[in-house]
């Protein structure tokens, strides 16, 4: 999806934030770009084109700008993506994605461009993302680039641990900190 500055209002419009449960968000991913007001699919939107498939979403720079709504990450996960590739991610979105189980892969602008060109040439292009090795490869040509990820978050993603589990284990330390805190 070679669109820049994809903001969270496009990923999941505000009217879909009315949920009290984490269900059905995949249906509303990019709702207003995917569907006409009468709910018929927009033929020229990439997600409606059956030639594309897979778990990796490739977006233009500054992907996920705007709101802190984690619903944006849920929508992407619920739809079936497990990885988003861009040359630049908004911070809150990057955090929300990792917390939800989506791997944000930041590549150079040049590499992103090569990925888009590869997909344009062949919509069935395969990308391989190797989290332990921290590399992303365009399989057809073998071109690869490394991406960075915080090693604590990397461990969590690989092992399925959770920040909340980690913090619960710190309960005593936190309470004693609270007792000494100013407020």
């Amino acid at each position, binding site marked *: 999806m070679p*669109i*820049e*500055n994809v*903001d969270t*209002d*496009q990923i999941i*419009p*505000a*009217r879909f*934030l*009315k*949920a*009290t*449960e*984490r269900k059905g968000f995949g249906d509303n991913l990019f709702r*207003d770009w995917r569907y006409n*007001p009468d709910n018929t699919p927009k033929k020229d939107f990439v997600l409606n084109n059956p030639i594309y498939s897979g778990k990796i979403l490739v977006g*233009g*720079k*500054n992907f996920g*700008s*705007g*709101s*802190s*709504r*984690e*619903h944006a*990450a849920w929508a992407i996960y619920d739809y079936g993506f497990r990885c988003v590739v861009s040359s*630049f991610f*908004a*911070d*809150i979105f990057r*955090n*929300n994605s990792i*917390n*939800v189980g989506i791997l944000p892969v930041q590549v150079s602008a040049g590499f992103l461009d090569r990925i888009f060109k590869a997909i344009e040439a062949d919509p069935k292009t395969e990308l391989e993302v190797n989290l332990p090795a921290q590399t992303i490869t365009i399989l057809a040509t073998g071109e690869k680039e490394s991406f960075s990820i*915080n*090693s*604590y*978050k990397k461990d969590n993603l690989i092992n399925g641990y959770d*920040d*909340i589990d*980690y*913090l*619960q284990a*710190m*309960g005593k*330390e*936190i*309470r004693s*900190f*609270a007792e000494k*805190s*100013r*407020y």
Partner: protein
Amino acid sequence: MPSTLFDKVWDAHVVRKISDGPDVLFIDRHFIHEVTSPVAFLGLENRGLKVMFPQKTFATADHNTPTINQHLPVQDPLSANQLKALETNSARYGISHWGLGNPKNGIVHVVGPENGITLPGMTIVCGDSHTSTHGAFGAIAFGIGTSEVEMVLSSQCIMQPKPQKMRIRVNGRPGKGITPKDVILYVISKLSAAGATGYFVEYAGEVFENMSMEGRMTVCNMSIEMGARGGMIAPDEITFAYLKGREKAPKGEAWDKALAYWKTLRTDEGATFDKEYDFKASDIEPMITYGTNPGMGMGITEHIPDAGKVGDSQASYDKSLQYMGLHQEDGMLGKKVDYVFIGSCTNGRIEDFRAFASIVKGRKKAENVTVWMVPGSHIVEQQIKEEGILDILTEAGFQLRQPGCSACLAMNDDKVPAGKYAVSTSNRNFEGRQGPGSRTMLASPLVAAAAAVTGVVTDPRELMAD
């Protein structure tokens, strides 16, 4: 070792540093609202966890609420569900809750400060990106996602890598008709929508030193719109005067003790930042946005610049202008306006309504404009009435609504129809933000008022005495 304001507050809250990992940061105050909390509470239930410090948690209903007839049951069932969930969850865990109808109800980032809950030197989070507002008090305040809301509820801590530090100084004195909203829109237009990503900003310099607390809140509020993690301003006499006597602010001996600490909360001489910017107040005009991100703004007398100046790709720029029905080189003055919205956590406070009233006094609402006036809280609403501002507004043909986030993000019925142009004192002009197909122009309360009485984009200075 000279240290910045940001470092002083951050370092004082680190419970544990994870090697090559984030810091575990203790959170002093956690604000919650009805949209981003229900799933967090469900998560708590599923894990069998409790809220660790209900007394450090404050709930208000704001995003989904109607701004008229709040005494009637909420029509939209999904909204009603979320509001009920907030009420139920708050009661269950012993969290202070200001729901619809409560005299303290209002927009979360308005009610925190006005009740003295927000204090200098605190760490504050909320499941809302405009939490940066509280940074106006010299607090580290930022928005978080729902999983993080669950994290803070269950452990009163959050995992955060420490951001880099940026300082933005603006010196000089703003001219007539230039408001804090114009200052921050100017800064964002210079840095772009992603220009501060990865940084926490400190705003410094004469312009901020002379700014009221409400003005500082407007500025800090929009830090996220240039991608910053948050923004803060060192507390000073203006801050202390604002806080003295507020309900939850310390009193007596506790006040003296707090004051002594607050006076240490400033950046030391010689402390360094990772990036710095310097701007002059004399370069700032009343601002207006023309595009679909808050960085696409310019002086109200200027003409829409080319894509290169904006820093976006040509394709992105073209898409934006096409959506807005505008063109490169277009001027904004004289552009017909269909809707005007004054309110939101950015500009929904008493000073914003005073500014609006100063322009409309003795004038009449333009026929072709629908105007939504939404106070940030019941306390603001009360002040509007007590100061006689309501009389001025009514005389001019305007109607005051009830508090809520309203048309800022149009989760309730206050939606701008497709294709219509709205001058809005809120914080985002993304495609469809105020309703599918709506076209938002962000501006100050003065610009909004000028549009409300003339029916077109107008330089407010034309309507002001010298």
